[in-house]
């Protein structure tokens, strides 16, 4: 498919979307757009309103207020003309439990006028070895990859992936990432939800951080990370080093904290040259025969996320991969702005 280079029209538009369930406001004035070939991640803790938003774009739910459009169509009013052009991966389930990957992909291929080759797709998502195994006996990761394949079978222009890597093992994640990268290359617009920061950072061109149904930030992962960066340098070595001596050795205005045993944060003054600070640090450690483990300047999306959600006054800031049930674990590490 050829794409016009000039003035790309948004493929997905979400404008001041509000979704209420009775008294509960699940989505509260959310706006974002996505273009062809763009991967947009909706990132937030469980209950942030990600699935409600995606299901409104898919036509499952009605907007209480605001508007959504996909490929210029209304997902509910124009349902019949829209569904052949979109691909959907539900958060869970959605497949006949008794059918194997090959059978269900062939079935779905028959729903579309122009579908991908089911056999090629089985191999693409790495399910060739289990293509006759009933869905209910597949592992969680295999089920997810089959759902992903089903989202792609109809050669969609937009795909909606609700938690595509949830429950997927590391090798499966590589497959999922490659497939999403392939979608981007072919000009498919990908809207995905995740509560895993590392996945959003790896997969998405743009991240929309949502909590309590509101957008807290929207940018590329790198820009988000840079936007809240405070110039800290983090490193690991033995626990309990003499931070007082390190401060003296580093000179003017450098602060040092041991954030957790063996994990340290250097806070150089704004005018300091980071390479010089790192060189001094490395020299000081070498003199004392101390190891240098992780060393990182700048910050990750995770730290940016915590800074953003923290400054928005939310109490349940999630952390690293699998943040379910580990909410607020690192609440004490919010970066100052």
């Amino acid at each position, binding site marked *: 498919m050829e794409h016009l280079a000039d003035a790309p029209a948004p493929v997905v538009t979400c404008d001041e979307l509000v979704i209420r369930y009775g008294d509960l406001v699940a989505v509260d004035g959310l706006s974002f757009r996505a273009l062809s070939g763009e991967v947009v991640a909706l990132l937030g803790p469980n209950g942030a309103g990600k699935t409600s938003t995606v299901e409104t774009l898919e036509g499952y739910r009605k907007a209480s207020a605001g508007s959504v459009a996909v490929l210029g169509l209304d997902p509910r009013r124009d349902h019949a003309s829209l569904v052949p052009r979109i691909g959907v991966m539900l958060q869970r*389930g959605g497949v006949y439990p008794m059918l194997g990957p090959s059978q269900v992909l062939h*079935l779905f291929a028959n729903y579309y006028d122009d579908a991908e080759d089911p056999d090629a797709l089985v191999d693409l998502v790495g399910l060739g070895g289990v293509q006759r195994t009933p869905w209910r006996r597949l592992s969680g990761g295999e089920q997810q990859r089959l759902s992903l394949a089903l989202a792609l079978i109809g050669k969609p222009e937009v795909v909606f992936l609700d938690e595509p890597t949830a429950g997927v093992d590391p090798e499966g994640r590589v497959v999922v990432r490659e497939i999403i990268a392939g979608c981007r290359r072919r000009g498919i617009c990908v809207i995905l939800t995740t509560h895993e920061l590392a996945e959003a950072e790896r997969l998405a061109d743009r991240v929309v951080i949502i909590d309590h149904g509101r957008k807290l930030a929207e940018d590329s992962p790198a820009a988000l990370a840079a936007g809240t960066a405070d110039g800290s340098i983090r490193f690991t070595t033995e626990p309990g080093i003499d931070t007082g001596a390190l401060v003296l050795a580093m000179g003017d205005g450098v602060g040092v904290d041991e954030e957790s045993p063996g994990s340290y944060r250097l806070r150089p003054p704004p005018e300091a040259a980071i390479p010089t600070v790192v060189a001094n640090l490395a020299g000081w450690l070498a003199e004392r025969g101390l190891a240098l483990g992780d060393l990182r300047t700048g910050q990750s999306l995770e730290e940016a996320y915590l800074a953003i959600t923290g400054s928005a006054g939310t109490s349940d800031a999630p952390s690293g991969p699998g943040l379910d049930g580990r909410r607020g674990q690192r609440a004490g590490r919010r970066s100052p702005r």
Partner: protein
Amino acid sequence: MRPLLAQLRVEVTMIFTNGETLFLTLGIPVLFLLFFSGVHVLPTGTSHPVDFLVPGILALAVMSTAMTALGIGTGFERGYGVLKRLGTTPLGRPRLLGAKILTVIGVELVQAVVLVLVGLTLGWSPGRSGSGGVLVGVAVGVMVLGTIAFGGIGLLLAGALKPLVNLAVVNTLFVILLLLGGMLIPLAKLPGWLADLSKVLPASALADGLHASLGSGTAVSGRDWLVLGFWAIAAPVVAGLTFRWE
């Protein structure tokens, strides 16, 4: 057409490769027919129990396919999110429903052929208790109404209850209607109040209609038509109004 045929093929495959469904739709009716025509423990009130059993078990077969197999299958598809997922494919609800209806009809045809053949082998003589003639067209009409009524009941429950609750309710209902519906035990053998209750249920109207048209070759009573007609309209309408796809 291609989506409908593909869906139909998968629906039929799922029925005929699922052991539980096969047992329910073919195993139980054939076993009942073999067992009770050989072991005369049921108060069928005839010297040829098979004459009473074949029409009654045909009614049972309709109930097992249209209500139990369709309802349980659809309930699980709903529970597994299959119905929801199909909602964002070009298949569409009319073709999904069409494939399910055609599947039910197909299964019932297989059941009817098998049960009639087994019955004839066991010495069933259609219309023996009457003039010797049978009203096949009337029997088919009764079965169509019964299928619509029981299909509506099955979908009504499948669209409202959680899959496992649905499974339990549908199976319980199946056993109750089997015992009270005049399929194996004539209504005359039930206590009066229970027989009166049973007469307004689709099971006894269906069984009674088949006993009349195939057993004695006599006309189906107006009350049976009325009861079947009521359920064939009410159950699908309520199912359509209350069905939740997720």
